[in-house]
């Protein structure tokens, strides 16, 4: 009894030192009655204590453990079968057409694929995001049939076949409370350079302009930098958001904000500005009087054939193009 108390004291002291680590192995052993008398040489006796524990109290938990292990094995085996089963299944039918790339193109590509697949039930199309560069890379590597890109191909990618899909305007948006209607391309550039910082410079009541840009590497930002910034950097003071949607959300809530998003995603909570007096309407985007226009491309390694060609033809056909128009883009074909 005295020994137990001593151990308790020792443990509470340990506890105090350890601050919060309550469990004390020696106390636990003492309570369980398995404390060995000389803790000086623990090496041969640890095994015995295992055995003692096992004989006395571990029988039920051991069964449980065995069951757990069985369960785990079954789960793993099940998973393996599920995976192989899937691959068997898909190998019986033709492999799906894979399209990878720009997240700006992705929602439109998904819409197209959906309609195409309902007309051609034997063809499956997988659409993945990942970004324009990732899509182009996947096509070069042969990992995807088609890449979707919201930027133009650079020189070393020119060997790929490019299939223009649609025009997309980039709208400069402000809050609907903002009285501004029009600005010049030069003003826009100076604003995003951080040279014009106040709405007063644009003839509005003075207040700081809250700039909102996209993250480095984004296709929309890339296009914006090319068309507006003339290779200069966007001001580091600009807020950065990682999607068209969140840029729109901020501009919709902040009366002093200005940002840029894809024209297809402009809604009535934000106001798109005229650039050099030209509003970003469908007509102006198609005939390029509106300046901020980029192309959406599909790229492939070789000219598309077979099922892939069927899909590409559908995209460029009048129903495919009108589908894109309905989603807010401007079709590449008249």
């Amino acid at each position, binding site marked *: 009894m005295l020994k137990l108390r001593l151990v308790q004291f020792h443990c509470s002291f340990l506890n105090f030192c350890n*601050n919060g680590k309550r469990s004390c192995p020696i106390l636990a052993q003492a309570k369980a009655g398995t404390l060995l008398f000389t803790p000086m040489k623990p090496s041969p006796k640890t095994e015995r204590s295992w055995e003692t524990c096992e004989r006395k109290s571990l029988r039920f938990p051991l069964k449980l453990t065995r069951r757990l292990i069985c369960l785990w094995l079954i789960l793993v085996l099940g998973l393996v079968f599920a995976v192989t089963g899937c691959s068997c299944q898909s190998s019986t039918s033709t492999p799906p057409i894979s399209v990878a790339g720009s997240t700006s193109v992705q929602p439109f590509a998904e819409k197209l694929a959906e309609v195409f697949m309902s007309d051609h039930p034997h063809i499956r199309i997988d659409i993945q995001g990942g970004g324009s560069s990732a899509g182009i890379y996947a096509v070069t590597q042969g990992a995807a049939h088609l890449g979707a890109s919201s930027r133009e191909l650079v020189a070393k990618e020119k060997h790929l076949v490019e299939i223009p899909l649609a025009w997309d305007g980039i709208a400069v948006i402000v809050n609907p409370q903002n009285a501004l209607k029009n600005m010049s391309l030069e003003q826009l550039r100076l604003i995003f350079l951080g040279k014009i910082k106040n709405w007063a410079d644009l003839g509005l009541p003075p207040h700081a302009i809250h700039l909102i840009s996209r*993250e480095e590497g984004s296709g929309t930002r890339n296009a914006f930098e090319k068309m507006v910034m003339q290779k200069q950097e966007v001001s580091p003071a600009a*807020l950065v958001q990682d999607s068209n949607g969140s840029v729109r959300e901020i501009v919709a809530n902040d009366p002093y904000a200005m940002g840029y998003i894809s024209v297809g995603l402009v809604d009535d909570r934000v106001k798109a500005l005229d650039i050099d007096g030209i509003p970003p309407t469908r007509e102006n985007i198609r005939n390029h009087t509106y300046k901020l226009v980029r192309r959406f491309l599909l790229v492939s390694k070789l000219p598309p054939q077979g099922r892939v060609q069927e899909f590409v033809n559908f995209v460029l056909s009048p129903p495919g193009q009108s589908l894109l128009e309905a989603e807010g883009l401007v079709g590449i074909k008249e």
Partner: protein
Amino acid sequence: MNRGKFIERVLFFLALSSVTSLLLITIFIFMEGLPLIISTGLKNFLFSSHWAPTRGHFGILAMIISSILVTLGALGLGVPLGLACAIVLAEFSPQRLKLVLKPTLELLAGVPSVVYGFLGVIWLVPLIRDYLGGPGLSLLAGSLILGIMILPNVISISIDSLDAVPETYRQGSIALGATQWQTVRRVVLPAARSGIITAVILGMGRAIGETMAVIMVAGNALQLPTSILDPVRTLTSNIALELGYASGRHREALFATGIVLFIIIMILNLSATLVTRRK
């Protein structure tokens, strides 16, 4: 074959696999990121705030400073609140109140960070914009949200360390004529000091590592902040924001950012361990 021995082996193997994954992650991050740090030069990487990865500028100073500022702000809010809460729960509240309050607070830890971020964007950001000025998405918003997020960590670890102070200390102090508050302040808090410091350091680790909520409320601008109302970008936000589109050197630069973050968090965790071990 001894069953106990067998189970011991299995458990040992499983334990090893978790350590292995940590090791693999470490190796992977360093392999991906180190080449860039070497080619840019450590000085240019750490002490320049010009970040334009697609143009070949890889300075992360602004983000390091922003990370530190956001974290300090979070501690400024989270530690006093958390500690006060822990003291009340451990020392002054009746058992029944404690039984209700403690699990409620621990529930806070289970709320996903996106939810904190969303609440921040919907409630906090407009409040800051309307009453304090600036774009609302700011250092202040990030600090406040993180301060609330680290509360459960700070509180639960502090409570545990306060509870671990032996009852005899309190009895002794009160027997000497000290009031309950004097006992807490002069005896219990100093005795629990190392546990409380651990709580703060772990809270700091959580704050510096948090990503989602910070991306949503901090604004992610690349500049060095000049006021608490300026938007800032932390190290974690930088990685999460740009990784989706990054390729080549840009991608390496993000992994290099990861290395810096990794080292900061390692230092924090190590110092937490050291503080607990001392004495």
